[in-house]
């Protein structure tokens, strides 16, 4: 890449680049302050706690790109978390079936959201507010009390390093094969997120449907006049959102070996996902940004909370500091306002 094209890319992806830089600084500082920083154990622990919010933030990105908002992502994650806590045990075939059932639940729920938004022509924010309540209700039906039964091997293998994965399932000579050595210390949860992002998000973004989603967010009328498949794109966007949210719910069940239909937790995940999306450089007006940015945004949110473990901060001050950091981070949007020459540009 030449300097000129790099410069152009940077100016077009200001928010994303800033988020990436912020994450790099925060993460490196965190690891150098941590007594066991830059070790596999720390990375595994961090990755484990980031996966659920990362998936939920990616799920939130799609409706936001359309210019809407999905207030049900946290609830769908909770619902799928409860489904997974019921079905992830038994023979390997049963477990595979359970994984499929969990992902199908979230995908169908997202599809339903999409249909309500497209055919019911209800604003996404308010439609998902309602369907979110339905999802929580279903989650409570499935799991009135927290708990669950998740296969121990699966739980162990997917929440540790690649070596543990190979060791648990006994492939690649139990993790000692020469070709797996370079990857042995990488946390599996990190790989899961990267793989899903690469296999799902990247092809989606390059497809006609994906481009249509961006076009709808920029100017829905223009997209319609250009003959783009608007309705299909909206439905696919919500369906994919449901799928990604169910990935989050599935992982949470594997990580905690349980399901918990907690309304407060669902709400917190939804709100944090919006924060992560904005931090990652996606505009709430729609049309610009992407799920990779939201991934970075979610990581930033998590790294900030990791700091409280190593710094000697009064635990009572933690929520305040978290809030101030969040408020400061989103306030960087003010630079756009200060640069505006024509007042009317503010009202877009």
């Amino acid at each position: 890449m030449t300097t000129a094209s790099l410069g152009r890319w940077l100016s077009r992806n200001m928010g994303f680049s800033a988020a990436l830089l912020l994450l790099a600084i925060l993460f490196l500082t965190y690891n150098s302050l941590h007594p066991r920083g830059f070790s596999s154990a720390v990375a595994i622990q961090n990755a484990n706690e980031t996966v659920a919010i990362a998936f939920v933030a990616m799920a939130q990105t799609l409706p936001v790109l359309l210019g809407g908002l999905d207030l049900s992502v946290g609830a769908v994650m909770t619902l799928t978390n409860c489904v997974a806590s019921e079905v992830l045990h038994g023979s390997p075939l049963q477990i595979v079936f359970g994984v499929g059932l969990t992902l199908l639940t979230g995908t169908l729920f997202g599809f339903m959201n999409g249909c309500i938004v497209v055919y019911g022509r209800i604003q996404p924010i308010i439609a998902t507010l309602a369907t979110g309540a339905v999802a929580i209700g279903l989650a409570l039906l499935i799991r009135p009390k927290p708990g669950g039964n998740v296969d121990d091997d699966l739980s162990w293998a997917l929440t540790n390093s690649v070596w543990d994965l190979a060791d648990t399932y006994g492939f690649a000579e139990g993790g000692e094969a020469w070709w797996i050595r370079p990857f042995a210390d990488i946390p599996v949860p990190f790989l899961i997120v990267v793989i899903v992002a690469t296999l799902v998000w990247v092809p989606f973004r390059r497809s006609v449907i994906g481009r249509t989603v961006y076009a709808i967010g920029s100017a829905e009328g223009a997209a319609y006049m250009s003959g783009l498949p608007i309705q299909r794109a909206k439905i696919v966007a919500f369906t994919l959102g449901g799928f990604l949210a169910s990935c989050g719910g599935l992982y949470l069940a594997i990580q905690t070996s349980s399901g918990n239909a907690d309304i407060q937790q669902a709400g917190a995940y939804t709100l944090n996902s919006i924060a992560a999306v904005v931090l990652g450089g996606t505009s709430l007006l729609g049309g610009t940004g992407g799920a990779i940015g939201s991934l970075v945004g979610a990581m930033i949110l998590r790294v900030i909370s990791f700091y409280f473990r190593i710094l000697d901060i009064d635990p009572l001050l933690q929520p305040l500091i978290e809030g101030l950091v969040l408020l400061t981070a989103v306030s960087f949007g003010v630079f756009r306002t200060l640069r505006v020459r024509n007042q009317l540009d503010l009202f877009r």
Partner: protein
Amino acid sequence: MQLSLSAENKPIVISSLFVVAILIAGTAYTLWTAGTAPLLSVGYLLQQLQTGSFLGICAAGMMMVILLGHIDLSIPWTLTAAAMTATAVGGDMALPTALAVGLAVGLVNGIGVAYLRIPSMIFTLGVDTVLRGLMVAQTGGFAPQDTATPLMLFLAKDRILGIPVAILVWAAVSLVIVTILTRTGFGRSIYATGSREGAAYLSGIRTRRVIVGAFVISSLCASIAGVLLTGYSAKAYQGMGNAFLLPAIAAVVLGGTHILGGKGRYVGTLIGVILIVLLNSVLSIMQMPEAGRQIIYGTVIVSMLLVYGRNQRVTS
């Protein structure tokens, strides 16, 4: 009655009919199971409205912000912060303190959204988190005074001529909001700014001040609700406002206010609140478990909006 309803009144009529339907269904249930009809007694309805007044006042403030096409997610902790600070100060200064907290939060929200142009969705969310942090930091380590003052108890629990004072406070807030929306230039500016901010700005409306004003009203309403709720439960506590955010938004939207701003009547919000309160009380009479409540709640919102809340098809 006219057969063709204006687009603005349709939601109001339909949600009123639904309120009646809830009352009939609930009464049928109680007649069948217990042979009594508590839902139709004045005393019971007044009591339900009394507990509904907290939501009603929150929704009144929320409506001002939604009319602008914005949203105020800071209501839960504005309510809580106002209540907790007020009880910590105590005495005669409790009420002014609560209002001052509301005013301050509203100003911060308004300035962030109107002048810094940060989307309200995320800015008010940040303010909410900061307020939560402040309250945790304030109450941590020692327990500040949290009992309601006599005035709060009077406002929330007493009755004048048989009518709960809380309902009167709600009525007063409603009167103020209706007057603002229909009788003042500020009210018209809110509708104009909500329809198209650029056009309103070019017409000479100081749209930023309008936005700040609406956010201040929203936060003031939340703090009044906080005061009442403290009186009702005799003390202020963390998380007391959490149950009000989403129902407030739902009530405003069920009442026909457009979530993207510019359209809506206050009567609709009032009926939206009554609908939600009655729905909740009928479900508790039926001893519906939380799971069923949530599902019914969501289904009702979606199906009501399917009847009258649909957008225009995008055609250009």
